[in-house]
């Protein structure tokens, strides 16, 4: 039997060898495989995935311009925009964590499969660490799920369906934009005041995720103030002529038409509704009215005079700071940057995209890491101000931002081509806040963050 002996020098050597051995995997993998697409050089790549064709192409182009502006500001170019007004001072115009920001773009075509394909390409081929964009809830929800699987952050762009932070919520996904519930909660009291509590509403709804939740939200909110729903009809997202759907409204008992359409679809359906004389119509002893729950200046421009006097809701408006003062600071700084670069005021799609890019960069700076789980931690329950919407909370429970909601209507006598929307009311945050498990949002779990590789 051999005798095991060890001296002091041997003990030190063995300890050092075992320690080095145990540390080895960490040394080799810490930078290379700690999380998906960890930036290793002097640059970091972001993915801007927006519709550049299809019915929401206008919004996509606007959003893309804003993302490009955000990259300029993050890299210290231009006038800095809302970096100057943002309550967090972590961003200094030196890129993100000292790495210069670069980007790749994709065309979602307003289609779920195309959006996922371009997002996958960005993750696998371009090595993006964050994807942002959307401009349509179907693709946004699909890309959010993909980002969760792949282990990158998704900062949603224009997605208004409840499901994005409801039943389809994901730990790696965050939404700055408001949602269908908030539109209903903000609009219903205004509609009651304007048109009375005794109204019969007919819904023409886009046949996809956003249409369903928005119709439900507006229906429940208006029924709560006394309105009656007489009919709900779904229309394909690809439809361009809505006359077959508008004509039956004339023979119904409705005195209000709610067009749950957005972008190019809304421009066409509203134009068709006006062509059929609905705006001049009297029904049940009342003036016939049209409501467009989700509004934008771009749509107002596309629909022209047809939008005059029509109520809707917005996430943000470029006139907010001029009308309501400092509470909405950041608005004018962004309008100046964007307006001088592109010659037109930014719309809400541009604003929410720009803000999402800044919020991501800021979270990385505050976390000191691009690791998605560190970013999630930095964003959850983060309170900020100075980004145009007033004091805002990124709620940790569902990754939804809570802020005031803008109720608008088409301006009757615009002074110029940009003066198309009149702000009717700023609905306070408390009025549009709900519990994370509210029935319209129930059924989803955030799960835990995924850092990928």
């Amino acid at each position, binding site marked *: 039997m051999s005798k095991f002996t060890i001296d002091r020098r041997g003990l030190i050597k063995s300890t050092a060898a075992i320690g080095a051995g145990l540390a080895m995997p960490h040394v080799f993998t810490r930078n290379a495989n700690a999380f998906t697409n960890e930036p290793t050089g002097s640059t970091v790549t972001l993915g801007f995935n927006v519709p550049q064709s299809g019915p929401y192409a206008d919004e996509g182009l606007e959003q893309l311009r804003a993302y490009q502006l955000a990259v300029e500001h993050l890299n210290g170019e231009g006038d800095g925009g809302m970096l100057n007004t943002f309550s967090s001072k972590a961003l200094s115009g030196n890129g993100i964590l000292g790495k210069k920001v670069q980007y790749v773009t994709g065309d979602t075509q307003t289609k779920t499969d195309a959006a996922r394909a371009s997002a996958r390409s960005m993750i696998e081929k371009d090595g993006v660490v964050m994807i942002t964009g959307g401009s349509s809830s179907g693709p946004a929800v699909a890309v959010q799920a993909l980002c969760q699987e792949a282990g990158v952050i998704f900062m949603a762009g224009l997605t208004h369906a409840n499901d994005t932070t409801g039943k389809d919520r994901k730990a790696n996904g965050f939404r700055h934009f408001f949602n269908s519930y908030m539109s209903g909660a903000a609009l219903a009291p205004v509609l009651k005041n304007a048109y009375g509590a005794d109204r019969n509403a007919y819904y023409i709804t886009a046949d996809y995720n956003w249409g369903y939740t928005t119709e439900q939200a507006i229906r429940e909110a208006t029924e709560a103030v006394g309105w009656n729903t007489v009919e709900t009809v779904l229309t394909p997202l*690809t439809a*361009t*002529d809505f*006359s077959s759907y508008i004509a039956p409204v004339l023979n119904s008992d409705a005195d209000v038409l709610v067009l749950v359409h957005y972008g190019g679809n809304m421009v066409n359906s509203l134009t068709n509704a006006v*062509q059929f004389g609905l705006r001049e119509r009297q029904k049940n002893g009342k003036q016939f009215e049209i409501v467009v729950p989700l509004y934008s200046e771009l749509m107002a421009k596309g629909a022209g005079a047809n939008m005059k006097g029509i109520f809707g809701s917005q996430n943000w408006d470029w006139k907010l700071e001029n009308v309501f003062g400092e509470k909405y600071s950041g608005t004018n700084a962004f309008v100046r940057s964007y307006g001088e670069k592109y010659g037109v005021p930014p719309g809400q799609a541009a604003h929410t995209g720009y803000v999402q890019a800044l919020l991501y960069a800021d979270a990385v700076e505050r976390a000191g890491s691009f690791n998605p789980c560190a970013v999630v931690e930095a964003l959850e329950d983060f309170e900020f101000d100075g980004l145009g919407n007033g004091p805002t909370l990124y709620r940790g429970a569902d990754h939804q931002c809570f802020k005031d909601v803008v109720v608008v209507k088409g301006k009757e006598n615009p002074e110029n081509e*940009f003066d198309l929307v009149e702000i009717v009311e700023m609905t306070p945050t408390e009025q549009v806040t709900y519990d994370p498990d509210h029935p319209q949002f129930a059924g989803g779990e955030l799960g835990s963050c995924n850092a990928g590789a």
Partner: protein
Amino acid sequence: MDAIILQILNGLDKGSAYALIALGLTLIFGTLGVVNFAHGALFMLGAFCAVTLSRLLAISHETVDPTRTDFLGNPLKVQTPYVEEWFGPEIGQTIIEWSVPLGILFAIPIMIAAGLAMERGLIRYFYKRPHADQILVTFGLAIVLQEIVKYFFGANPIPTPAPPALVGSLDFGVLIGFDAGQIIYPYWRLIYFIFAAILIGGVFAFLQFTTFGMVVRAGMADRETVGLLGINIDKRFTIMFAIAAVVAGLAGVMYAPINSPNYHMGMDFLVLSFVVVVVGGMGSLGGAVLAGFVLGILESFASMPQVTSVIPGINQIVIYLVAIIILLTRPRGLLGRKGVME
């Protein structure tokens, strides 16, 4: 009853677009034997003729008005169209507002040129090739034309309104004894239907009552015999291709105010129009027109909530269902000649 009349009107309107495109497709198939998948692109080109003319008429020179400011607080740049300067503000504005009807005159030479260029430059090399080759090359051509339009005009729909005098709607119900407001129909859609009827009637009259048309019809029936008589039938067929292009183009011009033109609109109509041609009967001009209106009306009825609530989504497939039934029971189509598609 009022709902039914309204949907018939609506269907006639949709059917007008289908019929006009299908008529052109049939003219080309009947004369040249070519299945022209680029025909929808000609419809789209017509709509963009209206867009182009409205933009040309709106070309302006810029002046700075120091008394007013833009959204950034800078002095306002005011655009004044040259047309308003030349003809005065009122007449100039009226000319701009009537750009769509004027677009008809603008589009005719452009569509003739486009049709001739398409036929002489590419399609004639595929006359003796299989239909599959013709479909591939014309489909490719359609995509090329689409992408060219997308490059110059962007991907977004471009609002192209009708003249203000023709905006609004007619209380059609009052004219036929219904209460006021029960059957209202937009003026421009009625104008579109009347325009389509005149255009279709014009094409038929041209083929029926002119010597040129008679020769073309003879050539459609027996190309070789007409050729043996010393008539240059190829030249006439080329002219028919240009006429078909003009028909599709004018259908597009007048459609522009109904739904804002976009680069993809030709493809949206093309597939449906081919179904119309097949249902009507390949090579049958009357069949194309009849099927266009019948399917347009069917589609409208299928979109009524009373129907979609019973069979959801029927509005999106009704035309294809009808096509399947027709092809199974009568492969030559409603008015097709025996032997074609059988």
